[in-house]
């Protein structure tokens, strides 16, 4: 497997060489995926909690749809956002197509269902546990929501990391709405796809290793922060 050996070499020289192009690509990857996770969490956490706490007609349908959208193929998400942002589409006037903002929107669409659906699960478990108690204190659902989210924070950290994993790993959506423009919308995954298509398999795999390392770094940081908070809690 000469390609695999060369990949480690390629990865190493990419990291040690601090190639400015690579740094730009890595920074953009992180910016886009983290922004998408932020958007996904800001909407998904309250949405998931609300779905757990409130009963309303059609809730089952909403929950089923949300769960189904966890499996939304990135290419389809990309295509939907492309059609919305295209000049011929309803939001074409914004001129967002082929920009990092478009990539954040597409990835948010992928991350949101995961965060909302899994949040709903966690909050529902806690709600079942504390419902009577909270009711007896006269706490309304609206006031209970933030406390329940806070109580589930360690589990929700994992949920958010799952969302980050989905965002940083996908290539189909950002390729369509970003266009893989050199220096403007090229991220790790689209760069890997491009190098593969050029037949530079070792470099492509090397970039893949760098991406893996990056995701591991983000996850490791989250783990450490979580552990410290947990220990502090007793």
């Amino acid at each position, binding site marked *: 497997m000469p390609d695999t050996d060369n990949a480690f070499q390629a990865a190493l020289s990419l990291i040690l060489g601090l190639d400015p192009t690579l740094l730009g690509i890595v920074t953009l990857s992180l910016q886009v995926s983290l922004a998408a996770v932020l958007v996904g969490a800001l909407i998904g956490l309250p949405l998931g909690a609300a779905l757990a706490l409130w009963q309303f007609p059609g809730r089952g349908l909403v929950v089923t749809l949300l769960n189904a959208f966890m499996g939304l193929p990135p290419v389809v998400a990309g295509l939907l956002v492309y059609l919305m942002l295209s000049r*011929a589409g309803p939001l074409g006037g914004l001129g967002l197509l082929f920009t990092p903002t478009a990539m954040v929107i597409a990835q948010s669409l992928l991350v949101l269902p995961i965060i909302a659906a899994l949040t709903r699960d966690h909050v529902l478990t806690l709600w079942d546990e504390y419902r009577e108690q909270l009711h007896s204190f006269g706490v309304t659902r609206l006031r209970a929501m933030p*406390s329940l989210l*806070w109580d589930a924070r360690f589990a929700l950290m994992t949920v958010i990391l799952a969302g980050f994993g989905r965002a940083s790993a996908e290539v189909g959506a950002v390729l369509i709405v970003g266009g893989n423009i*050199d220096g403007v919308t090229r991220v790790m995954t689209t760069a890997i796809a491009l190098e593969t298509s*050029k037949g530079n398999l070792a470099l492509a795999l090397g970039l893949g290793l760098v991406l893996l390392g990056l995701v591991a770094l983000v996850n490791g940081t989250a783990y450490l922060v979580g552990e410290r908070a947990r220990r502090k809690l007793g």
Partner: protein
Amino acid sequence: MFRYRRMVSTLLLACFLAAPQAAAREQHKERHAARYIVLASTTSTENSGLFRAIIPPFTEATGISVRVVAVGTGQAFAIARRGDADALLVHDPAGEAQLITEGHASQRAEIMVNDFVIIGPAEDPARITAAETAIEAFAAIAAAESPFASRGDDSGTHRAERQLWRAAGIAPQGRWYRALGSGMGPTLNTAAAMDAYVFTDRASWAAFDNRQDLALLFEGDEVLLNQYASLLLSTERHPHLKHELASEWHRWLLSEEGQQAIAEFQVDGQPLFFPSARSDSDDALTPTDPNLSAISLHLIRKFTP
């Protein structure tokens, strides 16, 4: 509850800190972004590295940067029809003519040529090296039912390949004909893994690293000429596009500097594109011999071993 309040305030603080920074970044981008165009082009031009060679001198001369979205020619046309690109650089004369007839494109100029080649397993089971013409080579592959990897993605290369099958009077089908539905690079990767014949342009082949047992087996027939054209989009159909900047790019490609930049681009000492400036709308613009296409083909033969 206290903990929750602290969390909210931290979050709000983070937002306040982040917002002005983000806004400043947007403004900064805006200033720089004012002078750029989006160019929809093909994977062959991007993958070969041509744009890295010719865009910097253009940007230096005009201050306009060019954002290349490299897709198949079919998809490039789709992007143009929706008004999502300021200019096109593609290689499908029939499709280009249609885009003009539909009123989406207003100007077309031929800017450079290269040629298509037929790649295949080095041992050449269908014996296409013995063929006189590209059509004979295709017929030999079909007769031997040797595996053939087709783009199958309605790209310019795929359209040229289909035209050759039609000219040979063959409707390619069966287990040997594999329509992959992917770009040039992935198709070459797959062909290398399957030991299949594959129809590609010289630039993509020259820039392709994962060749394994594949080799260039057939080249030089005049029907294999691959004409690249620059297209400008209609101001009436797509008023929002950056027409002035796009026509600066268009004119530069046709200018002496542009043509020279294309001629000077080489991979491993081999030129991959040959300038052939010729404008459809205005013959007076033509700085070079109208027979340049034929001359270029001659040059291609001369420069390739």
